[in-house]
């Protein structure tokens, strides 16, 4: 079984798969560019300037953003599941994604003045943070953060924000609505180099920090009392994890829109395949999430070439059946 393979071997194998996947994703797209020419362009040899622009300005940032988004959402999901000791937890259930959507849709329909001059991405990020803050405040009881309260507050806040988002959508004219729909279904089609550094820093720094924190995450899922007995300051740990996972979700959703199901599926998938130890789970979920999103994005722009489809449709259509199959296999 994969669980017995040393972490280093798994990491190297998955990293190699990710690099291979990214190269394929750069080589194939909605427009046909011969592989040899793509290779020339990627390695810096002069080629056709339009094709070079397609590869450098469009495809490479897009593939990188897909990888970062997949990694960020998967790690956020894994952390949230540990935080509330609930297998259903993901950025959607905790209301964080809904907060991001409400912020983004507010700017898209009413203009940036409605959100104090913020752009779509910043408004999405602000919305995610605000939602997390409210959920966090409601999830407390006498200074203690309880998992069940946190999940229920997340669901409640999520519904309120969803209602607000729907209301805003109804005010929109058709073009705004197209923009909103496109954003809500998630896409990395608008990826730009300028977006990448912030996302890369957030995803890599958060993941690295969390991996170092892996032992305490392991203790946390055993329950509040055992964790305390193991020397974990449960309250502080929960606050820290909520902040980190909201930061991750907010950053990713701000640039890639509402991509659902990844944060739920990838952590479970990695747990089933590689075991539940967070010191293994987190780095592996990062790579699996990245690879999954790169492949999903590749599919989304090749099935109906040269037209492109939103990511959110594919993450669920391809993810869910695979997930169910995995669950059933596990039960046998």
């Amino acid at each position, binding site marked *: 079984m994969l669980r017995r393979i040393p972490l280093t071997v798994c990491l190297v194998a998955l990293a190699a798969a990710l690099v291979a996947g990214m190269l394929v994703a750069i080589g194939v797209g909605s427009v046909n560019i011969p592989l040899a020419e793509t290779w020339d362009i990627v390695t810096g040899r002069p080629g056709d300037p339009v094709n070079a622009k397609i590869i450098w300005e469009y495809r490479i940032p897009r593939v990188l953003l897909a990888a970062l988004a997949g990694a960020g959402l998967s790690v956020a999901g894994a952390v949230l599941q540990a935080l509330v000791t609930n297998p259903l937890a993901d950025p959607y259930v905790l209301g964080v994604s809904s907060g991001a959507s409400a912020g983004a849709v507010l700017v898209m329909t009413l*203009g940036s003045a409605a959100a104090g001059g913020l752009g779509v991405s910043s408004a999405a990020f602000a919305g995610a943070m605000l939602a997390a803050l409210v959920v966090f405040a409601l999830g407390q009881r006498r200074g203690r953060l309880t998992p069940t309260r946190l999940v229920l507050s997340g669901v409640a806040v999520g519904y309120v924000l969803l209602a607000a988002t729907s209301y805003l959508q109804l005010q929109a004219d058709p073009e705004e609505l197209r923009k909103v729909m496109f954003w809500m279904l998630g896409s990395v089609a608008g990826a730009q180099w300028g977006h990448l550094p912030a996302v890369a820093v957030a995803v890599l720094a958060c993941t690295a920090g969390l991996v170092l924190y892996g032992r305490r995450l392991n203790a946390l899922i055993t329950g509040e009392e055992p964790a305390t007995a193991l020397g974990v300051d449960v309250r502080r740990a929960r606050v820290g994890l909520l902040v980190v996972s909201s930061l991750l979700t907010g950053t990713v959703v701000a640039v890639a829109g509402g991509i659902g199901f990844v944060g739920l599926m990838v952590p479970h998938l990695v747990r089933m395949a590689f075991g539940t130890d967070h010191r293994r789970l987190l780095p592996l979920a990062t790579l699996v999430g990245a690879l999954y999103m790169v492949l999903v994005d590749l599919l989304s722009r090749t099935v109906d070439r*040269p037209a492109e489809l939103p990511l959110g449709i594919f993450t669920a259509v391809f993810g869910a059946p695979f997930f169910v199959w995995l669950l059933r296999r596990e039960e046998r």
Partner: protein
Amino acid sequence: MRFSHALPLLAALCLPATACAAPSASSAPTASAAGRPAPGYPVTIANCGHSYTFDRAPSRTVLMSGGAVGQVSALIALGVEGRIVANAQSYGASDVPGRAEAIERLPKVKINKGSYDISRESMLSLRPDFVIGTTGFDFDAQNGYATRQELLGIGANTWLPDSTCGGPGTIKGTQTIDDSYEMLRELGRVYGVSGRAEELIARSRERIEQIAAKVKDGPRPKVMYVIPGMEMGAAEFSSIGANGMWNDIFAKAGGVNAFAGVTDAVFANLSKEQVARTDVDAVVLINWRNPDPDGEARKLFAQFPHWRAARDNRYVVLSDSAYLGPDNAIAVERIAKMLHPEKF
């Protein structure tokens, strides 16, 4: 690192190596690459706060979707449809005989299902030298489209109607028939067919003036402008034109928009009750991807039998002549004949 920064760096790295071929600028279809400007050029057009210079008439035009057909119609009316390499504007109807078929014959391009237009990779691979859009939405990177700056980078100029430079929902003022003339005039200059553009404008002006003179002194019936099947908002009646070019068209045709005062927006979002309370003497029904516009009129009149329009069964079905485009005179004439048949 952005590509524009990366390229000089890569070029610098290339210089010492003899195996490196120099990047050839001539392989790009840029206007500047092919030497001296053509006779009558350069032409510089101010559009949306920037100026765009053409060294010759565009030969690889791409038209983005935008829902309507005004831009592609203008190019056909100007006789430059041969310079279109990809057209995404089409909805299968026109008030000009043969126009819908002419649009259908143009080279098509597949559009995105998610964002309903040409993705940025496809756009660049079409190697356009001129891209015409409908609103700022068409050049918004967030939707996955190539930006005006990126297109300029591959030698393609871009154009939008000046009233819709911004993104969705940022229409400046209320369009009039003069906006259609302005579009013809600017595109005429771009393609070096200003004479043809001025001729089209003069002919349209003359025809509209004649009609307006005939109906000048009559009563001004209240007209409803509605696009059945197009949802512009949440209310039951969301595609009632309130403030748009049609108001100018109605004024010339001797009518007045029954719904102009209900909102400042382009389209009114009304409930059935609000619609019922308004007096409507005649209906202009816009055929937009609609298989049975006459059936829509029957449905509307069955709902509001108390309208004078319903009692007189007074409606006209129009399509592309009733908004931005080269053929507004047709709309003026057909609406005038419906409202004031005794004058013709």
